[in-house]
């Protein structure tokens, strides 16, 4: 069953900016990576899904409900972490979460404390004085504490340190196990490669490809096997280049950068 549907979505900002005839679906229990460089139209697409923008053409639905008309109903089962997080600066993190609890009318048990512990977050202190990483963690707690069925993350790991990034990856895996549907936007191939089942690539507002992560990996991860003079050398080589050693032979892999992946899809026409 498709939970998130984007059909022929178009929003033309003029000058080639915007989203043009975008199509993709995310099915129940799937983690979908939404990959593209900055300014490709990821956030614009997500704003349509959130009901912030009305589609000029085409439409988006979540759980069968229209993202513009039924936006308030959709939000009951949706968790959202915006790309540029902005809270009420005058509040402390704790006050903000308490405000959201009451604003969302959450009663009884929910996941606030569990999530705060998970991200090792102390929500005391004014939001205004928080670092980008702290705000990001607060945003994750705020988006997840009502345990929504559908999650939309817009570049969720920006500002998080490597430890918290891997915690986030684990969290996505755990949520997926529970059958949650997740849309995760990113401009880093490595990030979506680690977390997603399928990946949609957007560039210049157009969907370039929607493919399984395995297929993409096959196409964009290249293994090289080199033979060295001795096993000691091979071991050292494997350590330095993160390869796998087999006797004197070491296999190393290289990943295409995002730009190279786009080049691959555009052929020689990568500049457009």
């Amino acid at each position, binding site marked *: 069953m498709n939970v998130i549907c984007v059909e022929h979505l178009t929003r033309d900002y003029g000058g080639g900016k915007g989203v043009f005839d975008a199509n993709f679906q995310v099915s129940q229990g799937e983690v979908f990576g939404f990959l593209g460089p900055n300014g490709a139209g990821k956030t614009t697409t997500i704003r349509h899904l959130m009901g912030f923008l*009305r589609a000029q053409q085409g439409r988006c639905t979540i759980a069968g409900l229209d993202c513009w008309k039924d936006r308030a109903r959709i939000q009951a089962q949706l968790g959202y972490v915006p790309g540029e997080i902005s809270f009420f600066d005058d509040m402390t993190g704790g006050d903000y979460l308490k405000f959201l609890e009451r604003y969302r009318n959450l009663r009884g048990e929910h996941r606030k404390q569990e999530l705060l512990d998970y991200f090792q977050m102390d929500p005391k202190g004014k939001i205004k004085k928080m670092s980008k990483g702290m705000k990001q963690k607060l945003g994750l707690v705020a988006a997840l504490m009502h345990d929504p069925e559908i999650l939309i993350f817009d570049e969720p790991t920006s500002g998080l340190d490597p430890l918290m990034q891997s915690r986030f990856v684990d969290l996505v895996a755990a949520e997926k196990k529970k059958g949650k549907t997740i849309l995760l936007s990113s401009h880093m191939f490595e990030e979506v490669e680690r977390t997603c089942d399928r990946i949609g690539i957007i560039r210049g507002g157009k969907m370039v490809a929607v493919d399984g992560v395995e297929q993409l990996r096959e196409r964009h991860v290249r293994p090289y096997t080199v033979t060295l003079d001795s096993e000691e050398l091979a071991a050292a080589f494997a350590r330095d280049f993160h390869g796998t050693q087999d006797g004197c032979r070491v296999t190393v892999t290289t990943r295409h950068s995002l730009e190279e992946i786009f080049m691959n899809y555009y052929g020689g026409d990568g500049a457009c």
Partner: protein
Amino acid sequence: MLNGVLFRRGMKGSVKLLLILAAVLAMYVVIIVSMYEPEMAQLLDSYVELMPELMAAVGMTGGATSLMGFLCSYLYGFILLIFPMLFCILRGNGLVAKYVDDSSMASLLSAPVRRSTIALTQGAVLVSGTLILSVYITALEWFSGEYYFPGQLELEQLLRVNAGLFCLHLCLGGICFLASCLFSETKYSLGVGAGLPILMYVFQMMANMGGKAETAKYFTVFTLFQPEELAAGESGAVAGALVLLALGLVLYGAAVAVFTRKDLHI
């Protein structure tokens, strides 16, 4: 229709400004009321004779024969117009446009709360502040009047004038709130939300000075608020206040409708 949690947050945000305005208004109102004695009134009226145009611009005409008339002349032409208007401008902008401008509106919208509920709640915060100020002004005038000159103020007249004052500020608040819902950047929201009421007040000052400039009265809503005539219970003045009330309601309604339909780049 309204979200109680959001309403409380809005009212909390109004408290500081309300307290400052309350202190300023208390000072002005008590001082002006206490000046209603022959000697002081004569002094004030001599200023009016000295600079008739300047004094008329801010509604001060002199020669009042009752305490209510004296207040209409010296309070309702400037102080009681400007300070509540300041509240409408600052809070009107802060309740919607600021949240959209700094994107924190996203956290309000990523919850199962309708946009119309959010806009109505924020509008209710602004109207409540206006109402609180109107009631406070009425109480200030009544009690300081009773203290200095017992029995000289008629409560019914005072209530009628201040009901009209509330209608005027409801209309001004409606302009500020509509600007706040219409524009996604505070610079435009403040520009229009503050610019338009201030411009209309300037027109009012020009109209007060008389002469050719009197045609300016057709371009300002302040004309519809006529305190002296309201005190006297003239039907034209009552109709003017009702028009202000209707205008205010239409402006608030339009603001909610605009906010519900607009694209938000947050």
